């Protein structure tokens, strides 16, 4: 079948069921984010003697943790909760506030989609994001990303993605003294991959990042994007319930394989990043998270099967291209996803036009 049914009666079921599955799929990612941000917090504390811990989130850590001197799993979880929960509550509050106003003005019940938007938005932020920036980004996400296009299921880009882009573009020079904030990537938050850009394998070894720690997600980075294991669990659920398209997902990962090989084949031997191996592309930065939860958004992705393959390859190709050639955007996933989301309707249009021509030719 070339054309899949639209979002309203997709094989995966109605909108509410899809939303519930999407939220459920984010659960392991959330859990990993909690533990890892707590772990990174205590790790960073030791390296950041000038940090006084007087902000709200650090004081919450002080209240919740039992043994901050020699932290264990409980302390990691508590510190993670102290960081993620206020951000998530604020994002939900802001999203709910706008959703309420819009629902009142348009005379329909509140749409639940903002919960997913808030969750994705927070998971794409560094753990030390300023509260004012969350308010700004979430407002942009709900109003500009969703409401003006008609609400849930009608926008052509993922609202959370728009919110993140707005925050990244608006506050490129934001800086805070905090263990969960490195000066390297700011709101792009792709610390580990920025580190690779600077020092290659050596820097990875120095920072104690190996394949296993990156796989389970014990590396610095934006909250939800570090653990490939948790993302894979979420992806498995989304694939089994057919909420996301396996073609689009496969296209992105096969594309990554292909373009990493191409980049290595045509690399300049003096530049480490050109031959950055595939596993680092997958493990560092936010490619996997973006591929599963943002690019495969059932609303904003291409909805024809050839279109899905094209979109997936386009994402992978652009990500690899920007990563290996432009060190000012070490991660590149967020801007690429935005660009390709905008192109998705065009890709569909081209595929449909092509299909119509083929069929017309067959029945002369």
């Amino acid at each position: 079948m070339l054309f899949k049914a639209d979002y309203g009666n997709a094989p995966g079921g109605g909108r509410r069921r899809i939303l519930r599955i999407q939220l459920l799929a984010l659960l392991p990612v959330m859990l990993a984010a909690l533990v890892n941000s707590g772990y990174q917090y205590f790790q960073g504390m030791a390296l950041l003697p000038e940090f006084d811990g007087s902000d709200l989130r650090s004081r919450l850590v002080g209240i919740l943790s039992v043994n901050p001197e020699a932290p264990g799993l409980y302390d990691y979880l508590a510190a993670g909760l102290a960081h993620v929960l206020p951000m998530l509550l604020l994002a939900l509050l802001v999203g709910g506030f706008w959703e309420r106003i819009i629902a009142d003005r348009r005379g329909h019940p509140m749409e639940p989609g903002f919960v997913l938007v808030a969750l994705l938005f927070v998971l794409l932020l560094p753990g030390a994001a300023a509260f004012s920036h969350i308010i700004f980004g979430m407002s942009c996400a709900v109003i500009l990303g969703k409401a003006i296009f008609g609400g849930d299921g009608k926008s052509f880009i993922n609202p959370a993605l728009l919110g993140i882009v707005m925050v990244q573009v608006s506050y490129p020079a934001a800086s805070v003294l905090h263990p969960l904030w490195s000066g390297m990537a700011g709101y792009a938050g792709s610390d580990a991959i920025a580190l690779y850009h600077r020092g290659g394998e050596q820097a990875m070894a120095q920072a104690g990042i190996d394949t296993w720690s990156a796989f389970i997600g014990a590396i610095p980075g934006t909250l939800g994007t570090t653990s490939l294991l948790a993302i894979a669990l979420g992806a498995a659920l989304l694939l089994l319930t057919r909420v996301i398209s396996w073609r689009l997902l496969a296209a992105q990962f096969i594309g990554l394989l292909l373009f990493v090989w191409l980049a290595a084949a045509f690399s300049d031997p003096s530049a480490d990043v050109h031959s950055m191996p595939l596993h680092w592309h997958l493990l560092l930065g936010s490619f996997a998270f973006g591929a599963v939860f943002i690019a495969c958004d059932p609303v904003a992705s291409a909805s024809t099967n050839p279109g899905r393959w094209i979109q997936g390859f386009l994402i992978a190709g652009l990500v690899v291209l920007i990563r290996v050639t432009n060190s000012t955007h070490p991660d590149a996933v967020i801007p690429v996803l935005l660009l390709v989301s905008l192109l998705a309707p065009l890709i569909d249009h081209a595929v449909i036009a092509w299909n119509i021509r083929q069929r017309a030719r067959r029945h002369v």
Partner: protein
Amino acid sequence: MQDSNWRILTRPLIDDNPLTLQILGICSALAVTTSLDTALLMGLVVVCVLGLGSALVSLMRHQIPHSVRIIVQITVIATLVIVVDQLLQAYAFELSKRLSVFVGLIITNCIVLGRAEGFAMHNGVVASALDGIGNGLGYAFILILVGALREFLGKGSLLNMQILIPTSQGGGFEPLQLMLLPPSAFFIIGGIIWLIRRKRPQQVEEPEFSLRVKDRRAR
């Protein structure tokens, strides 16, 4: 139907605004609105050129051969724009440097040519001048709104006077970098169009197509 002169002057401000209803002149609106002073100056220049241009074209309208009318209109407009550009370079050199090519590009601004062709060719001198000035004011009005918003949110200042002290100087205001980039003008103009069309629903266009609603949600 002949509109009163007052109506001709005021209609382009909101009801028939060249920027928000006819979506003309967007290019310069993105480029010159990073600060209020350039927006003000650009607005003033366009008001002058539009008013004078429409009046001159209207004066000459019976002498202009139909087949070359666009060329004659462009010549009139280009003459005015060059004069204004030279005046700016003579008396406001700094500002004219910041406006760069956008003064010269008024020649190709669709609003100017549109008013000359669409109104001044068929109407008297006074009405044409008022129509030109009104459209210029409508353009300037949106430009000033966008310029003020962008300068205030992007730098915390208005007309280069610091109102909010940015964090880099120890204040509590965090400048919104986005506002200094051209896309922000798109968002702001879009927002203004949204607001105007909420107040004036007759401006809302018919949707070209609508979504088919298949799943029945509880309404």
